[in-house]
């Protein structure tokens, strides 16, 4: 499907929660410099599948992943893979903004600190500033970096979480319905931000909002009942879906 080598790819990936299979034999390629949207009705496995890209399913008791997931061709489930390094390269933004109960500065500095990215205080301050700038939050918070991150508004908190994720300079950013807990204005800002970040990272966004997928993504994957129904260029998928089920979902027949 693509000319370039994919940044991440999944081959025959299945995810189980105990006996229940949430994701069934999904194969997909994620490209650099593109936004890929996962859409589908609730419970279709799109979030679960997303969490297998940075092994966050490891933290769920009873979860099991089968198949092959690679980052730059390297199997991320291989015993030799360092999960800590993997997650530094594949960042994640969650559905509900989850800033730590620390200051704005400390929230963004958290990743650089634990990974030892800054040799000095001034270097750390530089990283924090550029992360906040890229997340479009700098002008709003530059005078109150020592205020608590939890005191910000919902939309600001979510952008803080994005700043926190990009502060460790990841290659891939996974976003799990990042705007579903926000109001329309904050949502618009997040979408604008995703557009600005597109050139630097491979971005995967899970959303149940089809207009959002159409607005922000170049590729769209439609999931239903744990299987990947259709995957292709966003424009093509929304104008001329190849599968009947995709068409039904996009036109609002179910979901």
């Amino acid at each position, binding site marked *: 499907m693509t000319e370039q080598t994919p940044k991440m790819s999944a081959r025959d990936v299945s995810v189980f929660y105990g006996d229940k299979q949430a994701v069934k034999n999904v194969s997909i390629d994620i490209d650099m410099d593109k936004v890929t949207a996962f859409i589908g009705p609730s419970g279709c496995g799109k979030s679960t599948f997303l969490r297998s890209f940075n092994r966050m399913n490891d933290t769920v008791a009873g979860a099991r992943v089968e198949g092959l997931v690679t980052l730059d061709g390297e199997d991320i489930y291989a015993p030799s893979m360092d*999960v800590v390094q993997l997650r530094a390269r594949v960042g994640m933004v969650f559905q509900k903004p*989850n800033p730590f*109960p620390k200051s704005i500065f400390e929230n963004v500095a958290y990743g650089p600190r*634990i990974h030892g990215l800054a040799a000095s205080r001034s270097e750390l301050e530089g990283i924090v500033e550029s992360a906040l700038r890229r997340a479009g939050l700098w002008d709003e918070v530059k005078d109150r970096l020592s205020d608590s991150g939890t005191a910000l508004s919902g939309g600001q908190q979510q952008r803080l*979480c994005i700043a926190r994720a990009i502060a*460790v300079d990841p290659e891939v950013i996974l976003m799990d319905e990042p705007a579903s807990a926000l109001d329309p204005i904050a949502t618009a800002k997040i979408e604008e931000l995703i557009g600005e970040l597109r050139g630097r990272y491979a971005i995967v966004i899970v959303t149940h909002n089809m207009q959002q997928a159409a607005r922000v993504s170049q590729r769209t994957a439609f999931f239903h009942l744990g299987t990947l129904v259709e995957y292709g260029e966003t424009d093509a998928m929304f104008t001329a879906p190849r599968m009947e089920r995709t068409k039904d979902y996009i036109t609002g027949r179910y979901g």
Partner: protein
Amino acid sequence: MSALALIFVVAGLGLIGWLTARARAASFELGGAKRLHSLPGQHGWYVAIWTVLPALLFIAVWSGMTPRLVQDAVLQHPAAAQLPAFDFERDALLAEAKRVARDRSATAFDPVAEQLVAPTRAAISYYGWIGAGVSVLLAFACGALAFTRIKARFKARTRVERGVMSLLLLASLIAILTTLGIFLSLLWESLRFFGQVPITDFLLGTHWSPQVIDANDPGKSLGAVPLFWGTFFIGAVIAMIVAIPFGLMSAIYLTQYAAPGVRRWMKPILEILAGVPTVVYGYFAALTVAPAVRDLAVMLGMPFASSESALAAGLVMGVMIIPFVSSIADDSIAAVPTAMRDGSLAMGATRSETIRKVLIPAALPGVVAGILLAVSRAIGETMIVVMAASGAANITLNPLESATTVTKQIVDLLTGDAEFDSPKTLAAFALGLTLFVITLILNIVALRVVKKYREAYE
């Protein structure tokens, strides 16, 4: 008529009220009204409550007043003139007369008491019948009044609901009133103590030897600072050095690392530890830990080390407190949203980094509150220190030396031959009051912290 019989009579009246009111309400239904507002049974309860409650309240008040009235009546009797003037002996004779008056098979030892038996018996019976008469009358009158109010549209259901609420309120008030009563009685005795010993001597004095009290200046040997220090040293320092790290670490293990299977049996075992009677810990402290600590001290070159060291009592107290700290820390850590933990893990933090840098700081207020509650429990703990701590009041920083605590001294002061007016005995109440106030403050602070912390995540 005895109070118990009286209660049965009133209850009987209540039952009659219930039955008749229900029957009457049921007859309303037949009488053509569309529908009763309340079920017949609710009308029954309405009347029954009105029959029983005022009468019971009266009985409670009356039985509190009767002994006083009986005594006054007996003192009016000519034979009472022979009673000794001294309070204590007079009360003993009156009590003897009362006992014989109640129990016909008993006989009095003292001739004066013998003479007072007949008037006492008469007075008891007189006031008994008055009480019985008034309460039955009250039950009947209130019941009848309630009965006349029952109508087809009468909202008995709402009224009974209100009655239930008052009953529940009363139940919760009893605990509060008891606490208040305890506090007031402590305060009262303490005020008597401070009438004899200056409060500054007590709170700031550093010499404690209640066995030898100078009658002219009792404050000199009743300085409580060594006790406060000992209590703080054993309960808040040594015990916490044991309880905080072990409690916290076990909570972290149980919430973050333990497999569900391990957690399932480990947590109950920890909680059982909290249910072990403190006297058992006391044995353990006195018979096992204390000698071991003394041997250690001897090895370290203290040949005359006490076998009642602060360390032994504090160590065992710390072990006792572990489940307490662990359980509250466990709750606080579990209350930190999973999103917070996931957020840190997704940044590439390891499990222990996540715990240290995110979970513990987020759970800290709850943990601190738990520790405060644990401290307040430790300093109020009695059995372990009574059995394992020494009676010698030292101000020392050496845990191998002996130290004593407030609770241990209260027990010592109140056991054995005690005169209730001496500063020595009254000192126990002043100590109790101080302890009460300190633990109360600790608990209030802790609860406030917990409350604020809860709000932060809701």
